[in-house]
């Protein structure tokens, strides 16, 4: 059963086009950068999510992707390194009627901003977090990032990095994000769909976008985006559908206990009916956790789509409700009642 979880931000009768969302600023990313595609898909999607333009806000930190707000003709705030989620949290709590989006990168969100990221997820603040993951520091010209693979040779790791990378969806899952998804800059349709789903979600929506930095980490996702190799290396997670991939749709994934195994569907001993059927709304995080781990398992395809979406009250709702309840119980406060409360005495 489809249990779509929807947001309740004031919707809109006006029909926008993608042009309405582009600002008058020249876009200054390197030619060929994956960020262009993300911008285009956001601008294409936004007319359909039905929120008034003035109620949308883009907040970013520092990094190439964090220039994003300048190119969107909505409200926008290009803040400081790592703090976009915290600033967005303050905005959302103070103005819950706004639709607040965060554009961020792997350094911004997972390194300097790691603390704010996990706590935003934990609190389930109703924010849309778009992680432009290019696995490199682009703006500072090519140093390894917290998502770079171990052994990565960069300017600050000339002999190969010795640290292990984060697994972003797994980190989001461990931090209790209520919407966790992944898409690719070079798969516009899929990316648009994911943006729409994130927009519809109520609570912290985390969307990791694999984004090619053609200057400092070109080809990082080539296997996943190249026509020739894509089908064999990407599995699209679709709710209610078995996990099938491969050029001829002939590879399936089934669970052997907690261990995912790839089976050849050309072999008559294997049946589609035995495959792992994806459930986006699974209340247990176990399967989403296994799916997140695919990228660490040699031979497994990279999952794109929604790992998991669950519904629970948001932080902003909780805060609002508490204020309403206390106000109902105590009555709206006045300065007189506050100052002249208990423990006063009169001198005549």
């Amino acid at each position: 059963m489809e249990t779509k979880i929807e947001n309740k931000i004031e919707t809109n009768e006006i029909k926008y086009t993608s042009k309405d969302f582009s600002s008058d600023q020249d876009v200054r990313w390197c030619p060929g950068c994956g960020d262009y595609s993300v911008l285009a898909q956001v601008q294409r999607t936004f007319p359909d999510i039905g929120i008034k333009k003035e109620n949308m806000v883009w907040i970013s930190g520092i990094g190439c992707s964090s220039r994003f707000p300048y190119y969107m003709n909505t409200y926008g705030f290009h803040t400081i390194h790592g703090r976009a989620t915290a600033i967005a949290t303050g905005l959302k709590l103070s103005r819950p009627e706004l639709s607040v989006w965060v554009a961020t990168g792997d350094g911004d969100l997972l390194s300097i901003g790691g603390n704010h990221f996990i706590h935003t997820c934990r609190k389930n603040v109703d924010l849309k977090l778009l992680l432009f993951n290019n696995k490199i520091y682009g703006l500072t010209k090519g140093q390894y990032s917290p998502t770079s693979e171990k052994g990565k040779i960069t300017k600050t790791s000339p002999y190969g990095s010795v640290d292990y990378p984060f697994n972003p969806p797994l980190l989001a899952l461990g931090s209790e994000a209520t919407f966790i998804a992944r898409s690719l800059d070079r798969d516009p349709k899929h990316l648009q769909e994911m943006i729409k789903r994130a927009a519809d979600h109520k609570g912290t929506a985390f969307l990791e976008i694999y984004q090619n930095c053609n200057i400092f980490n070109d080809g990082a996702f080539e296997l996943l985006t190249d026509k020739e190799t894509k089908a064999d290396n990407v599995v699209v997670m679709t709710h209610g559908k078995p996990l099938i991939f491969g050029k001829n749709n002939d590879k399936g994934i089934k669970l052997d206990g907690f261990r995912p195994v790839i089976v050849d569907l050309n072999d008559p001993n294997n049946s589609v009916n035995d495959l792992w059927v994806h459930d986006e709304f699974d209340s247990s995080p176990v399967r989403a956790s296994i799916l997140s781990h695919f990228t660490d398992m040699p031979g497994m395809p990279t999952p794109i789509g929604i790992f998991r979406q669950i519904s629970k009250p948001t932080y902003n709702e909780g805060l609002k409700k508490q204020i309403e309840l206390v106000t109902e119980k105590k009555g709206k406060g006045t300065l007189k009642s506050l100052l002249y409360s208990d423990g006063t005495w009169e001198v005549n």
Partner: protein
Amino acid sequence: MREEKIAEKELQNLKEVTIRFAGDSGDGMQLTGSQFSDTTALFGNDLGTLPDYPAEIRAPAGTLYGVSGFQVHFSSADIYTPGDTPDVLVAMNPAALKINLKDLKLGGTIIVNTDSFDSKNLALAKYESNPLEDEALLSNYKVYPVAITTLNATALKESPLSNKDINRCKNFFALGLMYWIFNRPIEPTIKWIYEKFGKKLDIAQANEKALKTGYYYGETTETFTTRYSVEPAQLPKGVYRNIAGNEAIALGFVAASLKSGLPIFLGSYPITPATDILQYLASYKNFGVKTFQAEDEIAGITSAIGASYGGSLALTTTSGPGMALKTEAMGLAVMTELPLVIINIQRGGPSTGLPTKTEQADLFQAIYGRNGECPIPVIAASTPSDCFFTAIEASKIALKYMTPVILLSDGYIANGSEPWRLPDPDSIPEIPVSYRTEVEGFYPYLRDENLARPWAVPGTPGLEHRIGGLEKANINGNVSYDPDNHEFMVRLRAAKVQKIQQDIPDLEISYEQEGELLVLGWGGTYGAITEAVVKARAEGHKVSQVHLKHLFPFPKNLANVLNSFKNVLLPELNLGQLAKVLRSELFIDTISLTKIKGLPFKSSEIQNKIVEILGGNNGN
């Protein structure tokens, strides 16, 4: 029957008394002290209090570093401080006696709990022999040994409480005894006990019994032959409450919220000694106050910046180490010209320093401590009740000039309390605020007559725009790397903050308007300076006083005021930070009196300096 007994005992009238309650940090001394203060305030005395507690929440019992104290100074006349030297020390154990004896007035009164003077506690306090048998102690002070633990336990032997819980009531015994000695009513505390422990009736009843037993003990025992009375002070007419600085700050911001019509958003991370403000504001939900206990100091300020961008009265509270962490975000608030109040309750530094002790050493940090040319107005509160008005003023400046403002307080006035004559809520002026809604001609970095930019909050149709931490082009607010524009904007931001001077009232000098000596102060030293000046003048010394609230920018007439005196004495709880600022900004030298012990000034320290500077000539 009871009245007869009272008549047998001498009742002596005193003008003022300072009492220090001291014991283990688990002995409930803060509670005992604040109950005594509240009752004394209700009784009508003027008073000042100073809690002094260790950073450890429950340090090992009996140790020297686990001693917690609470000092209260009360009087039948105006007073300005919690008292320099206590007249009375209540010492619940040997460690409390050892730590506090050196502060006690010679000939002062000591009430000790003799039960705790056993070999174990004496050893923990590093006493080689029992000080209560020390001739010098007995001849220099009036020592009253009372077996508080035993008397309390005997009184409560019928109580269903465990022995451990019974023992915990003994501070109420001590409090009861002090109420008797100082002729105060016990009813307010009994009322408080039932409000606080009402749900745990056994505990409430035991505490009440302990309190009354202590009170009657004073009355019936032969030990105490005298009780003292301090008549109510002649305070101006009005309704009063006892207030500590942190609560006053919280109240002040609620007032600013109601007067401006903007909801409060506080982003904060708990830190001593600022946490109370977060706690108070968290309880004012029915004022629409939103508090966000953030994951760290940085999220505290950045969430507040987000809320300010959204149109709230945005606040962040902290102390020194937290200020350091918030520094980069303050720069963002300066660059994006968003209103925000940053509250620093200063404590001893650097680093973790002395978390529970007071200091004024964050002045440089407040005025100068950021990257780039980054001007932020700085104002400081001077007394617990002044925190209320300073909070309102900080909000006003932030909203009118679209700027972050730093409000400095300190641990001393944050935790210290005084009776406060409550203002008429209607007498507090409205704070005019308007968001930009007009689409025609809108640019995010337009300027009004005060050089403030428009506050165009998200949700306003037609005003969609982008701001950020990169340098802004004048007026249109686009990102700009243009060299001339950068210099223009740097100067513009500085000019805007300087413009605040137009709203700062001229400093008013107390006493002679010119002469030999002026004592200048800022922040929480107000009480000690005032008392010192009053006393010095009473002795015939001609000395004037002025106190700064606005540290950046300064009041317009500051240089004139300082230049009207031959000498300016400047007491500060740091190594002379304001003195250095005055020298560099105004080319004015002061006589810097510094103290950096984590403790407030004693008025006598300042008074002695005044006398020393004036020498024999009394300033004439």
